């Protein structure tokens, strides 16, 4: 009984990480896999967009500043194809971005945002909260 209850608490989520910084993706993968979540990594925007369109992820962590095809381009493409609201996307950025710009992204259909660098426990809480929403 207690075992099944524990299993319920530690749900495993399918997380897509779209970030061009390999050290970040490696750290996040290590952490999330230790926390029993499944991680897929896309190293640029195009790869990320293709992955989002191909599979349904519980949560997508999307970096904004990436060379060539950046996070904004991914959001724009999803928006143009009416797919943005179908996915749970957390914008994960170190860019200098104003509160208004963040609010605007949320208004357009991005689920949430997290500013780098962040406490990994807070990040995990955000991922779980977003996946459960």
């Amino acid at each position: 009984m207690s075992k099944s209850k524990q299993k319920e608490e530690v749900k495993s989520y399918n997380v897509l990480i779209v970030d061009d910084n390999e050290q970040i993706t490696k750290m996040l993968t290590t952490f999330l896999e230790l926390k029993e979540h499944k991680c897929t990594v896309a190293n640029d925007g195009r790869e990320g967009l293709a992955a989002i369109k191909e599979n349904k992820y519980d949560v997508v962590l999307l970096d904004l500043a990436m060379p060539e095809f950046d996070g904004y381009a991914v959001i724009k493409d999803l928006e143009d194809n009416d797919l943005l609201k179908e996915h749970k996307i957390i914008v994960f950025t170190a860019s200098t971005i104003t509160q208004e710009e963040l609010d605007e992204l949320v208004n357009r259909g991005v689920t949430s945002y997290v500013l780098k660098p962040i406490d990994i426990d807070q990040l995990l809480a955000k991922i779980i909260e977003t996946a459960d929403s």
Partner: protein
Amino acid sequence: MLPIKHTLFLVSGVSSFIIFYMGIVNYLTSVEGVTGVILLIFSVFVATGTLLGTVYISRSITKPIEKLAQNMTEFSKHNKMTGKNQIKTNVKEIFELNENFESMGEKVETTIEVQNEYVQKLKDMDRKKLEFSSMVSHELKTPLVPILGYVQMLQKKELLGDLNEKQTEAVNEIYSSTVKLQRLVGDILTTQKLDLGKLDFNQEEIKVSELLESIIKEFTPITEEKKILLNLEMFEDVKIFSDRDRINQVFSNLIKNAIDFVTSGSGVVTIGCREDKEFVKFFVQDNGVGISDENQKEIFKKFYQIDTSTSRKRSGSGLGLAICKGIIEGLGGQIWVKSEEKVQTTFFFKIPKKPLTITAKATE
């Protein structure tokens, strides 16, 4: 003020009248009728001539002067030579006056152009500065993500396994330095934005009691851990129109400072507010080491850190109070400190209750 026209007419009118009058007197008193008539006719001619001459002279002087005056008014309005009224004159002085005015106008025009170029260049420089610091901040934050992540993982033995005591200590040191670096990066960008007037402020209705209670809630775990008492002293609950996040940031900086300067076990930090006419006056008080008069003048400057012999742990970036000052002033308020060494320190800041009008913001 008397226009030239009127003066000329007055003078010529009087002289014409005298000439004419003398002609009549001559005519009436002259014995020989013919001489009298000739003198009378002559006086009429001279008087009329004087008047006509005056009209001509008056026109050739006043017309160009009036035009010149108009040109000057136009110029002072637009800071530009319009060339609308071409001035044609035979009067040497007016001609020279106009020449001088035109060359002066051209010089002013070029000066203004050069000045505008400089203003534009300075604006571009400000923009580039901000772009640069935004970029630097992005580049610094990015590697902090894996550093912070791995350190935190190392701190959790269930994730990466047990560490011995020395390793734990080392990891904890790395962690606190990383957090400090993270804060510094954020503070530098905020300072840069404040300097360039690019920090945006919100205007929202804030219930002061809610604001203060949430701050107490946020800091209680930290003060409890350090065995410091955190009190709330509120006199009136008021509503203000201001920026909640920014006020929070100021409180957070002041409370963190206070925690650093009180003694664990006997330290007391009190936050609160009271109404002060058009303002709400907030305060953060601690019973720490205090700040000398000399230091009180300097602490709001960037990178100023009090060099205490009490070897307190200095955890800040040295930008905290400069940021507080910038934020409070940006919100239309004031910040100051009162302190008695070894007794207590109180930071006060007052914030207007009503939203800032656009004009008040523009004069900052």
